[in-house]
Each structure stands twice: as C-alpha cells, then as structure tokens.
C-alpha cells in the first residue's frame, strides 16, 4: 500500500546521510571543525526517522508500505522504478543500521579525534550508512544492487582509510576484488530474473517465481548465494574479512561486524519466496553456513591479533546465521534474531578492542597485553558482557539466539540435521575457547606490555557507546526472543511462527550447550590462563595449530587456484601481444622501411645511369610489345 504520513518521507533516511557525505566531501577543509558533528547528526536523525516510521508501521493493518520515487531505468521492456519498501524486515534492519551506526559515529568522534583525516572518515561512514539503508529499503533487486555496490565502495574506502600503509591498501583491494566475485553472482541472478520474468521488483519476482522451471530457480538461488557469500565473508570467499581489519576499528565494528557483512543474510531472508521453491539451493546455503562457522571458529583459536580473532569470530557467527536462514521457515527468525544480537555484542566487542588498542599505542598483539582489567575498568566490564553474550552464557543474548539456531538445526530430524547441529554445538565450544583465550590474554595475567605503554581508560565519548552496546548484548536476546518476539514482528514477512515438535528436549539441549561452553572455557583456562603466555608465538607447533594460524590455508588455495593461473594467463597474453601482434605490425614496418632504404640506393645522382635505366626500360617495353604482337 502507498505510504502516508511520516513513512512517505522515509527516503530521508537515505538522503540525510548521503547529503552529509556530499557536504563533507565537497566542503573540504572548511568543514574540518564541525564535520564529525554533522556526520553523527545525520545518522542520529535517520535513527529517529526510522524509529518513528517503525512505530507508525506497527500501527498499520497491512505491514508493507511502498514509497514510489521516480523512474530509474526505462529501456524497452525494462522499467525499473526507484522505490522503497518499508516492511517489518527492512524496518528491523533500518533500526539496527542507524542505531548501531549512530553509536559508532559517536564513538568515532573520540577514537578519531587525533586523526587528520577525521572529516573524510565521517564522510565515508555517512556514505556507507546511506548505501546500506538503500540496500535494505530498496523495493527491487536493482535498488538492492545499487546499495550493495555502494556499501562495497564504502567498505573499500574505509579499509584503505590509512592508505599510506601498504597492508591497508592491499587489504582494501583484496576485499574489493573478492566482493566483485560475489557481485557477479548477484548481477547474473538479476539478469536471469529479468530475462525469465521480465521484472526485477520484489513484488513481481516473488509473485511469479513459481512459474519458472525448477532448474532456473535453483540457478537463481545459487547465484544469489554467491553474492551473499562474497558480501558476508562466507566460504569460499571468507578470506577478505579478516584482512579488512586493517581499517580503523570503528569501521570493523560497524561494517565488518554489525551491518554490511550481514547483508548476505538479509538477501537470503528477503528472497525467502525464491528459496521456498528450491530445496537444493537452500541446502547449499545451510552447508555453506555450517562449513564457514567451523572454519571461522577454528581459525579464531590460533590468531594473536585481537581484531583478527574477532573477525574470524564474525565469520563464524555469520556462518550460524547462514545455517539458520538455510533451514527455511524454521530458521529465518532465529537467524535474524542472532543477527540482531550479534550486531550488538560484536560491535561492542570491536569497540572494546578499539579502546584497548587506544590504550596500548595501537598495538593489536594480545601477547603484549595482559592485566588490563585494572587499568581499563569500563572497557573490561563492557567487553566481558559482550564476551559472555557471544559464548552463550545463560540468559544473555547469545544464549537465546544461538541456541535457537542449533535447536532449529536439530529439529530437521534427519541425519543432515544431526550433523549440522553437531557441527554447530562443536563450534559453540570452540567459540567459548577462543573468546576465553582472548579474554585471558588481554585482561588477565601479568602485564606483558611493551616499554613506554601507559594504559588509560578511553574518554566518555567512547565509553558511552560501549556501555549502551553492552546493555544491548545483555538484553537483546531476551527482548527479541521472549519479551517482544521478533517472530511476531516478522510474521507478515515469513508467516506466523508455528509450534514445532522438538527432537531434543529444550532443556537437554540447553544443558548440553552450557556444558560444551564450560568445557571450552575450561580448556582455554587450562591452555592459556594457567601458564605464562610467551611474548613471541611458539614456532614449534602441531600441524593443526599451523593450519589454523594460516586460516586453513584459504589464502594459499586462492593464490594457487586463481591468482597464479591468472598471472600466468596475463603473462602469456602480454607475451603474445608483444611478440605476436606487435611483432607482425613492427615486422611489416621494418621490412618496408628496409627495402625502401635499399631501393633508394638506386638513386645515385648520375644522369647517365638514369639514362641507361630509361633505355633499358624502353627496350624491355618494345621487346614485350613485339613479343605480344608477333607471337
């Protein structure tokens, strides 16, 4: 139904941060003094609009509001209207993006206070928020794609924010290229929809998807999944996400933990009507999620870089969400609830990590931390709450949302369900292990600080968002699962939540999960907390640890499978171009030039030589004439 009242103005959600980015980028240095305030203001304003719009939406009977804006593309039979779709799903994402986004903008005011490029940073952050809101609010796949590319661009700009560091520039390029691999899949899926259905709007595609052949639907589903894998750092495109930690920490918190990387989950949840028709693609989504959550958890156990551990944890947690949305109707709500809870606690953890780095002269090596709980009390408390939420400590966020996913996996009731559930339980244990290891190495034990480091607590402008996010980490799970169930709110999108018969009694599963969590914590204490942590990582380690330190050789595989053959191909092409194409052209020119130079020697300047030539020529012509006429 068309929008009325405030919802008709929901385009402001996108326009405000976009205008902020434009003003800050075009305004140049004269906006340096107040640029961060404008950047934060636009996002806070967007949050208020989003909140009021959501309240209005809650009061409507039909919970799906369209805002038609203008004709975007009109060529032949392709008619794409630029429009927004405000429904419970997009409203949930809008609140997450603008809410967490606003908190991280506020935090960045303090975090980037001494950076000369702070205005540019806020401009890029605003650009990101605008693109991300377009991604979730667009009412067609084309609008989604524009937002999708926009967040990719913003992510690239922000990873390479400190572009003078070679590592950051390389990481940004890596992220951009691996995202392009996924984006090709998404683009192909949209092409396929247009060629088969003649439309790219959500309403049109979802309304007529059932008329297609099964194979075509599966192809669309798998191509969409490829796009989602690229953006969300899922297997086999997960390698870019940990490298993306080269960007400033607020970027890691906002883009590479809470919002952008969850776009893949949004895409698959939004395309639920497509996946309803293709169990094959849905199973693949599930398997990708299970593989990724295991890879991320294993790699997270071995790194010493605090941000990389959190990055692999993000990869792993998004794996859980993929597993959930791959489970179908039973998992959508669980997956999105986990997405929400994860947005809170992972953003809080990253901001905490940023606060620790702030205190430790931007060091990220956990082997040089230790004993920080006394020096950074607020960071310690907020970080601990995020940690407990992540490992699924009873009654905190992760406990409600992650357990729901694992429960849904077991509820499939078949062998695959048991395998996936088992993998998820195992990875939950690993999660408890690596996060406890991180906590022990960072906050406990004797200080192993480098010389000249004097840890100090961050200013209130940084700690306040951390406190808010910590409260979210504690309460979000209970709020979304029990108090204001997300399932009821999302019912207009995914259908009413129905009572399922549980394979395992919920209490049994909870006890198992708590036991596994305690086992992980205990093992971490046994391996890390009980002994002295060496300042330099031990070189002699088992093959398992070595594989985990190399993130299960994902980069090696990518390099040997794609990068090297690509280099060979380009080298062969350059050789062919230089020797083959250029050789033919240059060779012909050289032949002509050489022969003309040789022919030129005939011009001796002696008149009598020319006369002889003329005579000879005349004799030849006469002889030829005679031969022709006589013969």
């Amino acid at each position: 139904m068309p929008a009325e009242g405030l919802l008709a103005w929901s385009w402001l959600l996108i326009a405000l941060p976009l205008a902020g980015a434009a003003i800050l980028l075009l305004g140049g240095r004269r906006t340096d003094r107040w640029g961060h305030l404008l950047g934060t203001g636009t996002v806070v304003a967007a949050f208020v609009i989003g909140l009021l719009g959501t309240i209005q939406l809650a009061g409507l009977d039909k919970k799906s509001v369209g805002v038609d804006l203008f004709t975007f593309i009109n060529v032949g039979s392709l008619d794409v209207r630029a429009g927004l779709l405000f429904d419970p799903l997009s409203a949930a994402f809008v609140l997450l993006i603008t809410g967490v986004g606003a908190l991280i903008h506020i935090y960045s005011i303090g975090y980037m206070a001494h950076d000369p490029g702070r205005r540019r940073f806020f401009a890029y952050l605003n650009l990101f928020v605008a693109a991300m809101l377009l991604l979730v609010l667009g009412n067609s796949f084309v609008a989604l794609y524009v937002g999708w590319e926009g967040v990719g661009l913003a992510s690239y700009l922000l990873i390479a924010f400190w572009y003078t560091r070679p590592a950051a520039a390389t990481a940004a390029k890596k992220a951009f290229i691996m995202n392009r691999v996924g984006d090709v899949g998404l683009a192909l899926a949209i092409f396929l929809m247009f060629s088969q259905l003649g439309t790219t709007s959500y309403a049109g595609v979802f309304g007529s998807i059932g008329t297609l052949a099964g194979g075509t639907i599966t192809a669309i589903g798998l191509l969409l999944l490829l796009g989602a894998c690229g953006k969300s750092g899922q297997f086999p495109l997960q390698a870019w996400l940990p490298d993306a930690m080269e960007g400033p920490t607020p970027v890691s918190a906002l883009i590479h933990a809470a919002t952008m990387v969850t776009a893949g989950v949004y895409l698959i949840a939004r395309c639920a009507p497509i996946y309803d028709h293709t169990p094959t693609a849905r199973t693949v989504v599930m398997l990708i999620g299970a593989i990724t959550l295991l890879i991320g958890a294993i790699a997270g156990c071995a790194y010493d870089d605090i941000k990389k551990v959190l990055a692999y944890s993000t990869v792993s947690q998004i794996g859980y969400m993929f597993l959930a949305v791959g489970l179908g109707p039973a998992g959508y709500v669980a997956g999105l609830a986990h997405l929400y809870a994860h947005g809170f606690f992972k953003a809080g953890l990253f901001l905490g990590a940023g606060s620790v780095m702030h205190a430790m002269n931007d060091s990220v090596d956990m082997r040089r931390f230790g004993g920080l709980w006394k020096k950074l009390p607020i960071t310690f408390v907020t970080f601990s709450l995020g940690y407990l939420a992540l490992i699924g400590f009873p009654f905190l966020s992760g406990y409600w949302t992650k357990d729901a996913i694992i429960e849904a996996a077991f509820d499939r009731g078949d062998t695959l369900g048991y395998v996936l559930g088992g993998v998820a339980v195992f990875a939950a244990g690993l999660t408890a292990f690596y996060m406890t290891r991180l906590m022990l190495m960072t906050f406990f034990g004797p200080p192993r600080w480098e010389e000249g480091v004097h840890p100090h607590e961050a200013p209130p402008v940084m700690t306040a968002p951390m406190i808010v996010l910590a409260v979210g980490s504690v309460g979000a799970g209970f709020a979304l699962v029990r108090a204001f169930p997300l399932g009821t709110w999302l019912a207009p999108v995914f259908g009413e939540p129905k009572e399922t018969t549980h394979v395992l009694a919920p209490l049994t599963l909870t006890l198992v999960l708590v036991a596994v969590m305690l086992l992980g914590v205990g093992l971490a204490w046994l391996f890390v907390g009980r002994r002295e942590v060496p300042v330099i990582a031990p070189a002699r380690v088992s093959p398992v640890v070595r594989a985990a330190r190399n993130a299960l050789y994902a980069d090696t595989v990518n390099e040997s499978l794609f990068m090297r053959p690509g280099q060979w191909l380009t080298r062969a092409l350059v050789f062919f171009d230089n020797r083959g194409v250029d050789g033919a052209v240059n060779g012909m020119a050289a032949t002509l030039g050489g022969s003309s130079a040789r022919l030129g020697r005939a011009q001796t300047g002696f008149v009598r030589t020319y006369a002889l030539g003329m005579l000879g020529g005349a004799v030849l012509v006469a002889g030829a004439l005679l031969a022709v006429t006589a013969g």
Partner: protein
Amino acid sequence: MTLTYYLVLAAMLFTIGAVGVLVRRNAIVVFMCVELMLNSANLTLVTFSRAHGTVDGQVMAFFVMVVAAAEVVVGLAIIMSIYRTRRSASVDDANLLKY
C-alpha cells in the same frame, strides 16, 4: 628506293645518339646526342608518312622539332648555369641530387 634504307639509317642514328648519351660526360655532347636521337625519330616518322601517303607523320615531326627547340633553350640554360657555378660541364660532376 625501299623503306628499309631510311629505317636502318634512322636506327643507326638513334643508336649512335643513345650510345653517346650513355658514354659521353660532356653535357653539350650528351645534349647533341639527344638531338640526334630526336632527329632519328623524326626521320622514321617522315619515312612512314611517305610510305602510307598521309601527312600525320610529318605533322608529328613538326611537333617534335618545336618541342626540341624549346628543350634546347631550357637545357642549354641549365648547362650554362651549372657551368658557371661549378666550372664544369661534366654530367657526372652534377650528382648532388641523390639518395
């Protein structure tokens, strides 16, 4: 009186002229040899004109003479100016215009 004698005479004159052009160095002599070749051609034209009983060949011969007269004027002028600048009338010395 047969045609052959005239034609053989013309051929001999032409050959003498051609050989003179090729072997002599003095520009004036070369020039005279060229004139000899032109006149041998004229003789051939007139001979055939007579044999066929038409005047075409004679007309052509007049044209050749006119052209030859003009050529002499231009040619001698060039030879004179070359001789004045280079103090030589040898055609082999005037070989600057080459590759």
